């Protein structure tokens, strides 16, 4: 008899400890939300910055006494590889407790996973990938995106560069959907604006040796090498340009806007230009607030270029869950109806493909080891000159 009483007591204690039994006071219902990004590999600095930013949104919400739920962030690594991304997406989407997720920095991964989210009915907001087809290539109601697409980015890039007086380009792009997209839109806009593409070179996204391509480019004598790809091979291309004595300006895309790129290229980074959709963090409507809070949490890694978007995506998810409750369908429908939602990157409105319109494109140049907004740089002021100018 005593033994049974003891068992009963122990069971009760265990149940209480794991929070199964109702406790005194008002314990909030727990809700899981997800984050997927590249946490390892060559683009991991962007992934970790995004992870921290999403985590910041969750931390701030949990600290808010008015929040209806207590949120738990489930974080998975997609390694910037489509196969790993699909695994991670399937894992997170098949967990019925996860209500919504902020997903993917790499376009090749994001485009591979949209079917998974649609099949499992998990509403997601893409926080970094820029390939247009992720939202526009399908009619999936589950897929949204807070950052802009590569179309606007390349239009601005082409206009800006031809405006500076550059005429001839050679293009190196990776042969994933991401690199091909950049090549397509940039080539289109640069030709429209009177520029000329002397040669286009598709390379694999893990290629090590670019000497053959670069030697050929050297013989074409372009003024600018346009690189449509991500940081890891961008670093290699820049380093090998130097070794072969290729004397052209290196122009990148949003895919190289990260501190890792500057670390990897070292002294060779100076005077490299790149473009990214969205205003720089410090000039965003809520940029100051975001940076202060980020600082306060003491994360080991910087938030990087897409951190504010990851924060916005997660915050929007949390706002929506607060409004309609932890139900995937309800959250999906509410997200689709998002119009003029106030956020740190400005107002978020989704069109019928779940795409937010981000009108501002920021032009960057690397000056003294920092991504500097073009207008604030010594290059724009004329005290320094871009290569070939």
């Amino acid at each position, binding site marked *: 008899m005593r033994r049974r009483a003891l068992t009963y007591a122990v069971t009760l204690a265990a149940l209480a400890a794991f929070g199964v039994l109702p406790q005194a006071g008002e314990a909030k219902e727990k809700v899981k939300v997800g984050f997927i990004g590249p946490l*390892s*590999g*060559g683009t991991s600095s962007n992934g970790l910055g995004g992870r921290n930013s999403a985590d910041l949104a969750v931390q701030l919400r949990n600290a808010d006494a008015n929040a209806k739920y207590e949120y738990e962030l489930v974080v998975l690594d997609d390694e910037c590889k489509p196969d790993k991304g699909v695994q991670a997406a399937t894992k997170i989407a098949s967990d019925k407790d996860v209500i919504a997720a902020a997903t993917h920095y790499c376009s090749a991964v994001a485009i591979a996973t949209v079917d998974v989210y649609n099949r499992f009915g998990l509403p997601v907001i893409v926080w970094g990938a820029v390939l247009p087809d992720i939202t526009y290539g399908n009619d999936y109601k589950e897929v949204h995106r807070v950052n802009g697409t590569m179309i606007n980015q390349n239009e601005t890039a082409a206009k800006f560069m031809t405006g500076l007086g550059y005429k001839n380009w050679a293009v190196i792009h990776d042969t994933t959907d991401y690199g091909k997209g950049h090549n397509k839109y940039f080539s289109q806009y640069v030709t429209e604006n009177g520029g000329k593409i002397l040669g286009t070179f*598709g390379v694999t996204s893990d290629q090590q*040796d670019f*000497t053959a391509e670069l*030697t050929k480019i050297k013989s074409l004598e372009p003024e600018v090498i346009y690189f449509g790809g991500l940081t890891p091979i961008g*670093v290699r291309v820049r*380093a090998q340009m130097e*070794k072969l004595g290729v004397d052209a300006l290196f122009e990148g895309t949003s895919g190289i806007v990260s501190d890792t790129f500057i670390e990897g290229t070292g002294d060779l980074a100076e005077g490299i230009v790149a473009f990214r959709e969205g205003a720089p963090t410090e000039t965003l409507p809520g940029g100051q607030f975001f940076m202060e809070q980020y600082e306060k949490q003491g994360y080991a890694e910087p938030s990087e270029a897409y951190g504010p978007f990851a924060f916005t995506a997660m915050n929007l998810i949390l706002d929506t869950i607060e409004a309609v409750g932890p139900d995937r369908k309800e959250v999906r429908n509410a997200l689709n109806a998002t119009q003029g939602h106030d956020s740190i990157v400005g107002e978020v409105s989704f069109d019928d493909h779940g795409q937010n319109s981000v009108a501002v494109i920021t032009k960057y140049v690397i000056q003294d080891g920092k991504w500097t907004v073009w207008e604030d740089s010594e290059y724009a002021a004329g005290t320094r000159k871009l290569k070939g100018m």
Partner: protein
Amino acid sequence: MDAGLLSQYVMNGLMLGMMYALVAVGFTLFFGVLDVINFSHGDVLMVGAFTGLATYIGLSELGVAWPVLQVGAVVLAATVCMALLGALIARYLVLPLKSAPALNTLLITLMLGTVLRESIRLFYPEGANPKPFPALLPTDAYRIGNFNLRVDNLLMLLAGLLVIVGVHLVINRTKLGLAIRAVAQDEETAKTMGINFTLIVLVTFAIGSALAAFAGIMNGLYYNEINFGTGLLLGVIGFSSAIIGGLGNIYGAILGGFIFATLQTLGAVALPFASAYKDVFAFGVVILIMAWRPTGLIGEKVSERV
């Protein structure tokens, strides 16, 4: 095409070819003495490069900044460690399976390669990220027209050449080489002549793996970057080079390495379509060569189908 550009292509090709040849020689040595394919060879190369990098970081911590000493220590540490690793692989994975079907050896080395690769990825600090490799050689460059001649490339080519000549001398001019050749030709007879078979196999694996480590360091110095996946493609290319040259023949392996590099360079330069297909082109030609000369260009008399 002007002479400067042509020289540049030749230089690029020579650098690649030298690395491929060093890897291919390892494959061919292993096959020579034991008739086995060691598919962990490429990953041994990668581990060698990481050993070199770790040595460099260790030296920097100790405050050693003299480049000659740094290069020497990096190469020495990598080759010695990988020689040991190679001997261990032979002793505990390959030799015990000697009487098992050749497929088992193939499989076990393939597995080992994955284990090595994943170990670096998981256990080396932030091993999943590409690691910058220091430029330890002088980086001066001379511009001759369109040709950018770099001193470090020249030094590496020279070092690679010396290593290959060294291997040639060891195989052909020493008692050890005689023993290796004897074992390769006929194991039983070699044993009855008093040759310590196990020792010769271990030494051969040590030599082959040290060559891979050397190629790994070269790879790091050439690209100034290494990552945990470096060995994967280099292993496949090295193996293909050994095959087209004629597996079991050292000169064939060297020739194969340079042929493969030439094909890759040609694929990127001379073909009208996108350079993304250069590997497709190179491996395609390898298939054709194999169909034409199944035993390789400088093949042994007996064909061994893999």
